[in-house]
């Protein structure tokens, strides 16, 4: 019964519980959360792909795609640190849960060999939108989570 | 590598390990590495008052290796592990899991034999 003082103290004090998701704590600034790419800055050098310990990033220089499997990503931040153009970033919040597996596919403008200079203008705007596959699901889920947050 | 390395052979390994035990050494573990095409290097690591001693033995994988689990009971786990990883046999293992300590029958290749390279999965 030597534990009694502690439980009595607990009883008299306010519970320590953080009321997540109703109140969300201010995140720590350098938390390694959701990874995203600023595709405009990407030069498709492939360093992130080579450095990634989980080997979850694929960079296709010819197609100009940067593909990452967020489910295999281990959020170590190596890719971010090694990116020569600093176009990889990590949000300070975690990636939201999903009901389907997704692939992050970002299509950007590969550094052009001089002659195809003007060719890639057209698709650029359309492909800004991330994750063409399963995009709907992914949108739906954070929405419910947001709703819960507001409650 | 820190510590004294003593070379032993299949014939005197048990005796040498016994000697270490009588000397008051604690068996830390074994380490293994590939030695040539079909050889296996085993390092027995011992510790006595933070001083390290190693016994080094090289064997062929197809011949049974004398088990020291009779000397140090603690060796049974690591010997079973080596059995799993290199598909070698130990003579006189006190509790022989017979290649089932870690692996299920689905794993058909011998994991650490390096000519059986594992292909990255897609």
């Amino acid at each position: 019964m030597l534990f009694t003082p502690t439980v009595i103290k607990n009883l008299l004090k306010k519970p320590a519980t953080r009321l997540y998701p109703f109140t969300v704590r201010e995140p720590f600034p350098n938390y390694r959360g959701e990874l995203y790419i600023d595709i405009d800055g990407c030069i498709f050098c492939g360093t992130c792909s080579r450095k990634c310990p989980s080997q979850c990033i694929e960079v296709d220089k010819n197609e100009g795609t940067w593909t990452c499997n967020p489910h295999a990503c281990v959020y170590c931040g190596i890719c971010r640190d090694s990116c020569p153009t600093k176009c990889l970033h990590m949000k300070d919040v975690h990636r939201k849960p999903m009901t389907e597996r997704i692939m992050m596919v970002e299509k950007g403008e590969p550094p052009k060999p001089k002659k195809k200079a003007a060719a890639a203008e057209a698709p650029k705007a359309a492909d800004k939108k991330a994750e063409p596959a399963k995009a709907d699901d992914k949108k739906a889920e954070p929405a419910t989570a947001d709703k819960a947050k507001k409650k | 590598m820190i510590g004294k390395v003593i070379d032993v052979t299949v014939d005197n390994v048990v005796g040498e390990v016994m000697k270490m035990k009588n000397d008051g050494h604690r068996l830390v573990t074994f380490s293994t590495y590939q030695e040539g095409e079909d050889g296996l290097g085993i390092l027995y690591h011992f510790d006595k008052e933070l001083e390290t001693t190693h016994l080094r033995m090289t064997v062929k994988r197809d011949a049974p290796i004398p088990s020291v689990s009779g000397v140090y009971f603690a060796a049974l786990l690591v010997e079973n592990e080596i059995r799993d990883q290199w598909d070698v046999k130990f003579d006189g293992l006190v509790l022989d899991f017979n290649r089932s300590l870690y692996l299920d029958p689905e794993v058909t290749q011998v994991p650490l034999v390096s000519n059986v390279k594992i292909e990255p999965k897609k």
Partner: protein
Amino acid sequence: MFGSFIKKSRAKSPWIIHFDCGSCNGCDIEVLACLTPLYDVERFGVVNVGNPKHADVLLVTGTVNHRNKKVLKNIYDQMPEPKAVIAIGACGNTGGVFREAYNVVGGVDQVIPVDVYVPGCPAKPEAIIDGVVVGLGKFAQKVEEAD
């Protein structure tokens, strides 16, 4: 009336079972941390029952390997319907950093159907709570479909 109360209760009383399916313990301790005072998922009626026969939600952490895939299947089968599966962490999702290792089969969805994927390595307790919330949504949807 009782029927609708049952339906309402489903979302209010998700009993979980946590199976560590070859995880590095990173996600495990975060799952356990969810039960502790700072996160206290019991607010949502979550109880860690530790017995598949009582559980509604299966939280799986870790990679599936050849030995534990049978265990995972067994546990899943022993859970009564309706049930939901939440795969936690990179390993549970895909096998994570280990997915090329020789004894690794891959993510949880190689063996049983997964309802919610919680990414992260390890997933934060907040992420797991989010996952359970999403899972309950999925759960309610499943029940609707079944009726």
